[in-house]
């Protein structure tokens, strides 16, 4: 048995100590988890989705638990990119963990402006990369979600690509018929990596009031319930593209993370599980290391996509 192993991976040109990242929207701006997690130990931090202007978000209730999962309809409440730069990023400078900013917008122009602005401050503020959330509705195309259409995906990613040299991770939505075509479009448009899945659309109803339980009617389903769907899609995308894939969806224990890695994820993001166990990221990093050693795997990159079929 070996006694040391290498957990380092490279995603979109970003060098990570280990493959464990935090999923956007579930780890605040990092600082919230400082009482529980040594941020220096994380592979990377992806912060709450940011928009150009501050957003108020949806009215409550915004969260409903479902069997082994949860629905959320936060509505992208966030402080806006300027406040992010001024008030949130400075605090993160003291950690030597890559910070990736998850960006959202209603129009291509907004995405592009966000990418430009973050590019400008990237050196100074330690912005290592962007994760482009294309699960937002395109206001120009009557609410159609960018990430559900290959052409729209190409268009938006291509525009952002032209603006910035920052590493671009494109985050895919699972609510599509054929994720391979979307993944290909993102790759062709210049994405450096793909991350998936974002949440599945879901709803629940209060049978007493006969109203939807979420004020927003629908919400995004996350948590262990969605893991089988996420794993399948990660494997589909892994077989389709040549850029690294980041697995997300229902990871709550080390076995889950390993499943994603074996199915092709070079890194993973942990979302909902942070709410259940605030130290879950660290426990999973330690668990992966243990598994590699026990299985005589000297470098985690050997495990990536090693699924036998």
């Amino acid at each position, binding site marked *: 048995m070996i006694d040391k192993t290498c957990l380092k991976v490279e995603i979109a040109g970003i060098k990570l100590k280990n493959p464990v990242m935090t999923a956007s929207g579930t780890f605040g701006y990092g600082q919230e988890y400082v009482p529980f997690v040594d941020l220096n130990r994380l592979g990377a931090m992806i912060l709450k989705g940011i928009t150009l202007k501050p957003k108020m978000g949806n009215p*409550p209730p915004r969260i409903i638990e479902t069997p082994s999962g949860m629905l959320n309809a936060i509505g992208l409440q966030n402080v806006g990119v300027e406040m992010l730069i001024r008030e949130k990023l400075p605090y993160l400078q003291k950690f030597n963990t890559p910070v990736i900013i998850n960006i959202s917008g209603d129009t291509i122009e907004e995405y592009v402006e966000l990418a430009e602005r973050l590019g400008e401050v990237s050196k100074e503020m330690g912005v290592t990369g962007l994760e482009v959330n294309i699960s937002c509705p395109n206001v120009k195309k009557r609410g159609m979600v960018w990430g559900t259409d290959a052409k729209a995906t190409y268009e938006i990613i291509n525009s952002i690509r032209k603006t910035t040299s920052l590493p671009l991770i494109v985050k895919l939505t699972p609510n599509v018929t054929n994720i391979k075509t979307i993944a290909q479009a993102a790759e062709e448009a210049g994405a450096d990596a793909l991350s998936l899945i974002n949440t599945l659309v879901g709803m629940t109803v209060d049978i007493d009031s006969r109203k939807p339980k979420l004020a927003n009617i629908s919400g995004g389903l996350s948590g262990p319930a969605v893991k089988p769907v996420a794993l399948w899609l990660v494997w589909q995308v892994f077989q389709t593209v040549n850029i690294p894939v980041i697995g997300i969806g229902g990871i709550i224990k080390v076995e889950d993370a390993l499943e994603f890695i074996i199915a092709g994820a070079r890194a993973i993001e942990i979302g909902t599980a942070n709410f259940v166990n605030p130290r879950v990221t660290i426990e999973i990093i330690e668990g992966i290391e243990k598994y590699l050693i026990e299985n005589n795997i000297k470098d985690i990159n050997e495990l990536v996509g090693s699924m036998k079929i």
Partner: protein
Amino acid sequence: MSAILNIKVKILSGKEVVPNIYLMRLKAPEITQDALSGQFIHIKCSKDNYPLLRRPFSIHRIDKEKGEIFILFQVVGEGTKLLAQRVVGDDLDIMGPIGNGFNIYPESRKIMIVGGGIGVAPLLALCEESIRQGKEVRVLISALKKELVIGEESFRNLGAKVDVATDDGSYQHKGLVTDLLEGSIREGWLANQIFACGPKSMLKKIVEISLDAHIDCQVSLEERMACGIGACLGCVCKIKTKDKKEDKVKYEFKKVCEDGPIFGGSEVVWDD
């Protein structure tokens, strides 16, 4: 505010104090050190990941000497059902203490505490602290019926005057606890501060009464929570922001877990 801990604490005792409402005592010296009345803890109700999310419960009593905290909770769903089934000696996974806590002003002399149903949970620690600070405290509590009145004796033992309203009139005043509040004001017992916890409709009414009587009022709010520590933005409530420059009312969604759970009554926007 002190750092939030995530620790395992021993269940020292647990019992059903009135039908469907449980009192649980926990050994948690790390928490009692800094806990404030009005704060809560975020509990993993079962040993596995079902139900998935933690559940928030107010700190009912803080016994700094023994290093113990109490929670008082009502069984309403899966999480509270499983919590009630946990046995003495078990380790309970909690995060806390969380939130801002009640703000008792040094200058206040008279304190009115109003609790509706399980809403009395955070108020016992508040009562104890108020009395420790030498305030005169009156407590109004309400329940559906006599059998469901919680904490009456405990408040009285601390030295507070306690009045009860029951919906069906099976004990003391028949009607709403807000009747009692209005009554006490009419009789001239004017508190410097009102603290309240209970159903939204009750809180709304209490805030109205306090505004009319020009009494400062703080309420403890509830909202569904995921993280409990300000990271998910799930637990917001609508709060009026005093925007004095522009002279128009603005609204903001504030987090019950981090910015609350205690809010100034007059800031809260009730109708939505």
